[in-house]
């Protein structure tokens, strides 16, 4: 695996097409995430944001187009080898293992790693980011509150020591205080060097923390640009920021 220069693209998606049965869900999506960036993918429900993430980690089969990660073509690779190459995801709806403890859930995030001796160190790091999880570490994940589950889900993804972090709707269903906390952590994690691709319905918050953004509409990228520009874009304001 060749090391990329610190400013080059980590992830490059080119003309991606995905079908669900006969439904053409992604109609030629292209985007990229550069080293060190937070990039956000915003858009209405059903625009194809989650489908894009699921294509990146190999859950959804792509019919056309390429996905390159750190310069390597990972299109069509099975999910477990994509995770191994360094892409971790906190999926929509958290998707914790409800009958496993918080600690076991975090361990599952590190499933592909062979350096077990570093697990406890990484777990401490997750607990440092989310002290709440440490208090609950023996508790079954299914019994956590929504905010705690989201923390656990992000923590679980971080346990993979990802070179790219995919976050799918981390603010969904959370109280404003938790949303704030989650976004602070995302910025914190990014500062420590992990590029983030953030899918959000909460477009205002997402554009606040992101460097660049893409706006999706019915399976295509409708708009793209620096987050600051998108925030002031009239169309974006009308549709996603609840103004006008």
């Amino acid at each position, binding site marked *: 695996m060749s090391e990329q220069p610190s400013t080059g693209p980590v992830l490059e998606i080119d003309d991606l097409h995905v079908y669900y049965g006969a439904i053409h869900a992604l109609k030629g999506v292209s985007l990229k995430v550069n080293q060190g960036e937070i990039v956000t993918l915003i858009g209405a429900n059903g625009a194809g944001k989650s489908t894009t993430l699921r294509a990146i980690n190999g*859950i959804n089969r792509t019919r056309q187009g390429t996905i390159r990660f750190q310069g390597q073509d990972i299109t069509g690779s099975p*999910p*477990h080898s994509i995770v191994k190459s360094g892409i971790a995801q906190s999926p929509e709806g958290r*998707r*914790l*293992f*409800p009958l496993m403890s918080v600690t076991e859930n975090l361990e*599952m*995030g590190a499933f*592909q790693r062979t350096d077990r001796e570093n697990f406890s160190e990484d777990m401490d790091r997750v607990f440092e980011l989310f002290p709440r999880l440490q208090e609950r570490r023996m508790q079954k994940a299914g019994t956590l509150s929504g905010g705690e589950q989201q923390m656990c889900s992000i923590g679980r993804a971080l346990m993979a020591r990802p070179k790219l972090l995919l976050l799918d709707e981390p603010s969904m269903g959370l109280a404003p205080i938790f949303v704030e906390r989650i976004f602070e952590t995302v910025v914190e994690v990014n500062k420590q060097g992990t590029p983030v691709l953030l899918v959000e319905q909460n477009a205002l918050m997402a554009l606040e923390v992101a460097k660049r953004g893409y706006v999706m509409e019915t399976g295509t990228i409708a708009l793209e640009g620096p987050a600051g520009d998108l925030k002031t874009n009239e169309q974006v304001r009308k549709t996603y920021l609840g103004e006008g």
Partner: protein
Amino acid sequence: MATAVAALHRVRASSLIDAIGLLLLGSVLLWLVVKFFEDPTRFINVGIIGVTNGAIFGLVALGYTLVYGILQLINFAHGDVFALSGLVASTIILDVLGLGEDTSVIFVVLGLLATLAITMPLFALVNASIERIAYKPLRHAPRLAALITAVGMSFIVQNVSLALYGVDYESVPSFIPRTDAIHVGGIVIQWNKLSVFFIVIPVLLVMTWFVRSTRQGKGMRAVAQDTEASAMMGINVDRTISVTFLLAGSLAAVAGLVYLLQFEVRYDTGFELGLIAFTAAVLGGIGNLTGAVLGAMVIGCVQAFNEGLDGTPGGDWTRSIVFGILIATLVFRPEGILGERTPEGA
């Protein structure tokens, strides 16, 4: 408003069903208490037979519940894999190792361990191959397709047994004496019954350790709880499913040997025993490992009490009673004794 009324109806209906279920359960328990005081010694002796048989059923039930937990598939072929493993074990014991009643204890133990050393990996592979050939291509097909294929695989394995061994029962001489190992008052445990636990308990301990503590075992639990999230965590789902079938197959091989030592086996033994074990798995809460063993113990005792106590319908009715329990479980407590009420609670 309409939904509130509907919810109220549901609550009322379910509490009525619960009440009937509890009434049924209560009367059975009351009957057992009466029977116990009529003749405690006999009751306990019959109970011991029930627990022993339950231990064997439990090994088979685990195979159903492991596979169901991970694929939501009832692997009907499992009982037939169990029976074939018992038949193969009889060949190894009699024709290959030549064990007989006059063989010394140490060679019997070594011989039985050697048999397991062959049949466990062999039937682990057979079971995993069944998955690979018959179920894997249907992973994304409607669930009914896989279910019908499982019924088909059951017939195929059964007919392989029939072709190889014919219609006669296979049995081995009673190496393990039916003399008393424990004798307290009138309560007797014979060596051949006790030996079942010498095999089953270590196997259950190793399996529990595997599922709870190893990386692969944790992966299995993760896939059972959320297959897609497991894939997102980097767990190789296909491999985990194969490992599950390997584990289920080796448990079936242990059950096959233990059953052969107690009873006799022929090509269709797995059909009925498989259904009993499946009932046990459902009773305990399908997908729940402890539940499978617990359910098997209950079914074993129900069978023993029905056949060994006075004033019961008797052995001819055992099947009907076991399947009556299956139906009652599905009506009164579909999630089983230890199952979770959520659909993804496996």
